[in-house]
């Protein structure tokens, strides 16, 4: 039981990373019908930005603001920086290719992904980088014989809170309605006076910013990061997106959490080496039964 609970909590944590990254995939996809392959690498870049802030700031930010202050600064800086990076990627790699159709966009996204991950390698080197230990909050809470690090708890609470916030924004506000309208039919939405640039700004800023947050949290939870982090996490998060139903905000969250928990439980009780195989098999099985994912609406094409 203890192992189960611990694995479950681990799964929720890693699942919340997947979910945060998946949100970015899903938001961009919903509006642009583009799989933003560079998104996973923006997540990794976010992790590196957070790392850099903590390394540089270890001397003074942490001293002045405390460990948690340092974490907050790193998070803010990474989210802002990556949000802007997301906009830049959209501007230089996607906007000029929109008209050419979907496949060239995918190649452009793959190119951007390769560019960013190798850019990280060129700047920070090909080896693992350790988050500075004294910048990572080290408190541990115990519930009976279950121990959980405070940072894990914070990760979970903050991620879930943000997801709820995004959900509320997209589903309940007027701006969210504009986003959803654009996702359904961009031309009509534009004719109805919705400013498409604002929508683009929203999805390409907020999506990557959420990814960056997941990146910093990943660094804080696991302590070390590597340049191709984006490929592994990105692939899993993309899987989660599809699992839930792409273009669908709650789908991305549920897909991410579910994927994390499944993976973690399988790892704990069956085999770590085969966990990815298991995840993909589950995904394929689900898609055979529900071709548009768990909560994806059935899109019947009008004939």
């Amino acid at each position, binding site marked *: 039981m203890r192992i189960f609970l611990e694995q479950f909590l681990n799964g929720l944590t890693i699942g919340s990373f997947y979910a945060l990254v998946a949100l970015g995939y899903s938001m961009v996809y919903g509006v642009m019908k583009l799989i933003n392959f560079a998104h996973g690498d923006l997540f990794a870049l976010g992790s590196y930005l957070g790392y850099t802030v903590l390394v540089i700031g270890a001397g003074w930010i942490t001293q002045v603001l405390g460990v948690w202050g340092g974490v907050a600064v790193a998070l803010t800086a990474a989210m802002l920086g990556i949000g802007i990076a997301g906009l830049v990627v959209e501007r230089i790699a996607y906007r000029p290719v929109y008209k050419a159709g979907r496949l*060239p966009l995918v190649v452009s996204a*793959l*190119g951007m992904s390769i*560019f960013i991950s*190798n850019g990280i390698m060129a700047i920070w080197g090909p080896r693992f980088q350790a988050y500075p230990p004294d910048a990572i909050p080290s408190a541990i809470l115990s519930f009976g014989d279950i121990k959980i690090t405070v940072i894990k708890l914070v990760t979970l609470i903050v991620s879930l809170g943000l997801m709820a916030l995004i959900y509320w924004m997209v589903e309940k506000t007027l701006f969210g309605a504009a986003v959803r309208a654009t996702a359904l039919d961009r031309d009509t939405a534009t004719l109805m006076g919705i400013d498409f640039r604002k929508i683009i700004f929203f999805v390409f800023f907020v999506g990557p910013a959420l990814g960056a947050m997941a990146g910093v949290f990943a660094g804080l939870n696991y302590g070390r990061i590597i340049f191709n982090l984006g490929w592994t996490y990105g692939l899993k998060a993309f899987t989660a997106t*599809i699992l839930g139903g792409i273009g669908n905000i709650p789908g991305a969250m549920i897909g991410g959490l579910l994927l994390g928990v499944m993976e973690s439980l399988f790892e704990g009780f069956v085999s770590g080496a085969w966990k990815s195989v298991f995840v993909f098999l589950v995904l*394929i099985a689900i898609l055979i039964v529900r071709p548009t994912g768990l909560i994806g609406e059935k899109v019947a094409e009008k004939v």
Partner: protein
Amino acid sequence: MADVTRKVTQRILNSQKSRKMPVKIAPVQLVLLAAVIVLLIAFPFFPFVNNYWIDVGFFVGIYVLLGLSLNIVLGEVGLFDLGHAAFYAIGAYTTGILYVKLHVPILALLPISAIVAGGFAYLVTSPIIHLRGDYLCIVTIGIGEIVRITALNNPFGLTNGPNGVTGIGNPDLGLFAIRTPTHFYYYIWVIIALVIIGLLNLQKSRVGRAWNFIREDEIAAEANGIDVRSYKLLAFVLGAALAGIAGNIYASKMMVISPDNFTFMESCLLFCIVLLGGLGSIPGNMLGAAAIVIFPEIFRQFASYKLLFFGAALVVMMIFRPGGIWPRRREGVGFRGLGISGLPKDENEFLLKIPKEAVLVPHGADPAQSTAVKAEVAQEKTINNIVLETQNVTMQFGGLVAVNHFDLKIREGKITSLIGPNGAGKTTLFNVITGIYRPTTGKVIFMGKDITGLKPHTIIAKGIARTFQNIRLFPSLTCIENVMSGPHCHAHSGTWSSILRLPVQKKEERKILEIASYRLNQVGLWEYRNELAKNLPYGKQRLLEIARALATSPKLLVLDEPSSGLNDKETEELMEFLKSLITEGFTLLLIEHDMNVVMGISDWVTVMDMGSKIAEGLPSEIYNNPRVIEAYLGKEE
């Protein structure tokens, strides 16, 4: 008859005035081709070329082969395959394991690897082939990862985990073993040459066109007689088999294979090769592969930056040349681009020489046999001249009843119109008749046979062709190619006879072109034959769709709002044209909103409202029927 000939000649004269004849094979292209071949043959003998560069030439070859294999799936059919390295891996591991464990000769493993990879593709893709775009994409990524991780985990001690299979031998031809870089270089390029000849033949055949139809519009392809599912599976199997061959050659060259050779990144590279070159373009593919292999070699001294440049280059390429380096050209190539042998140089001459019986006799059947068939048809099928009958058809979507216990009878040689207010369920009924929907209850009887629940491509082969309310053409194919989808469902040539260009296949291809040309000319679009369908104005697109449906040689033609979007003059011409189809022996069912058309040409009118039949009768009867007026205009208080 004389009148028809005069019209045809007139059109031909017009077309000669307005458009240049397609150019003959440009000598430039032949020279270029010869130069490339000479260059490839002479490459190992160039003074600066050492073994290292010969190996680079070999790896270009491997990626050309892989690119060509993915091009079948991604380029020709448009299936989003981002896990193609899986099939490459299956080929390589089949070779490695069977050689090391059972000492099967490498050359014997070449076909075996192809078969195993193709069979694997069939098994894994058949349950998921119906998935759309991005969903298929993630599943192929998943398959790629599953294969790689399985190899990594060393199941049953077969794959030797991360270290991979070692000690794989070289291909041995008995007297002569392929061993040096130069040997391998020629070995792979000879295979590539053979593969390319086969693929070019396949691309310009019934099979290749069917793939393109699916890529352009899956639903229209299915509704025009293409068995979408089978053709998609065929593409995956062929693509995988080719990748398996590449895997075999790679394994025998490197003598060691490991999971690192078959990562997701590898699949992405293959994807980029196809798009860099140009979708469905074989020369483009070769250029794309060369670019992917040689680019990092040039930047070798920048070691850790080379992929950085590479990523940026991909983006820049897509911005400035989204169609690829060498996209496949279709427009303005003329009939030459169709790859059909024995055509006269002058396309107009071809049109004039089309034997009428070639068009009117169902495709593939010889005239004697078809008379027998016709007699049989006349005897058993058209009881009371009823061609089509829907019996008590109901179509429900969730709680919504779109069609409610509907009975419809279509008489042979008549024009029946189905009218009703918007949302009455007319198009839904059409979709039930043509097999796009399966009715919740009820039966559809065509020529005395129950066709309920058959797939659209089967129904069209039985003789019901349709057009769509929102035009669904194959936009990036030429008009003639669009119409050539029609005879597809009556033709038989498969993959092998297309690759080998058997005489039967050549004859059949010519016949397909004859039927298509005849129908295209019949609707007055002959002069646009080599234009892309998407470039036609709206009204002409409608006509093209009708030509495409006619080319399936149907018994019953089902037209969904043929006059919508046409101006008065065009509508007038359309009415005349539809009437002329009746004299040619077709039966027509229309959905129509334009009452002038309905009243002007219909023999029988059925009125539908809220899914139910509210009236039927002669046009004049319907015109004054109070229930019909009420359905359209509301009740008078």
